[in-house]
């Protein structure tokens, strides 16, 4: 068993714990979904086309994260960096859209103190957003590290972990898209 495989396995176990964390937030959302307390429900505040664009951005970034791994396999440093930059930009666009959505809600008076439903909405989607932001910081650090030292063993390992993290966040988003937004509008 070499150390890199062990680390990747450990990261996989960490992702599983994150999976349970999101599951808890999903169950809170499912229970508090009807707790609108005189405030708006999903139908009133969600714009599906807007969220559809967000979803496509994140999905594409998950794809480009995969491309960076392929580039790494052929040892093409520039391709790795380029695909990471594209991934980061797509992720940034996603975060920007999410922040603007949150800001719009807050300005309309529908912030997280408005109702149990909105609290659970902000907590679930916000936690995902926070993960994306952490992933972006990591990605920038990694781009710098790869530019400075190239595709060393440790940088390659970090690239693998980051791509796992990024794919995982897209997996979670599938369910946020479906359960929060689509169900909210149905």
């Amino acid at each position, binding site marked *: 068993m070499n150390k890199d495989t062990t680390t*990747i396995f450990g990261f*996989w176990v960490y992702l599983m714990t994150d999976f349970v964390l999101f599951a808890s937030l999903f169950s809170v959302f499912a*229970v508090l979904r009807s707790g609108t*307390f*005189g405030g708006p429900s999903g139908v009133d505040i969600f714009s599906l086309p807007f969220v559809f664009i967000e*979803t496509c951005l994140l999905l594409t970034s998950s*794809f480009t994260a995969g491309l960076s791994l392929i580039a790494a396999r052929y040892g093409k440093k520039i391709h790795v960096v380029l695909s990471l930059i594209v991934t980061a930009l797509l992720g940034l666009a996603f975060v920007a859209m999410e922040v603007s959505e949150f800001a719009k809600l807050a300005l309309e008076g529908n912030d997280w103190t408005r109702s149990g439903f909105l609290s659970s909405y902000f907590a679930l989607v916000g936690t995902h957003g926070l993960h994306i932001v952490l992933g972006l910081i990591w990605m920038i650090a990694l781009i710098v590290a790869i530019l400075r030292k190239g*595709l060393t063993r440790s940088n390659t390992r970090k690239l693998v972990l980051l791509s796992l993290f990024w*794919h995982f966040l897209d997996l979670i988003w599938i369910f946020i898209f*479906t359960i929060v937004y689509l169900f909210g509008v149905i």
Partner: protein
Amino acid sequence: MNTNDYLEEMHVLPQGTHMLRSYVIGFAVSLLLTGAAFFLVMRHVFPSPLLIIATLVLALLQFLAQVIYFLHLGAEKTRDSREKLWILACTTVVVGILVVGSVWIMFTLNDRMMMSPQQMNQYMNGQSGL
């Protein structure tokens, strides 16, 4: 320097040269499934209960597609890969128990409350000034 070897040793990508194809298929399938779910809901093609089941099935299919084509889980027949798959399966069971159990418990509790969340919402809407 060739990182090829590093990645090979880490056993994260399947053997062979079809990796790009794998990612492209995964991407295309995911886009298609997302688009389908979006379309179904926007047009409200089915009655609501059926729509919920349909979108949930589409989401699960996309989950599977990404696990297979993006995470390449189970592509390598190593002990490591098998253990990852096991851990994912066990976690999924726990997640299922947690979500289904919580919803079941909380809904029967709500059922016995004097005022359901929906009634509370109506009541609050009826109050002036809110």
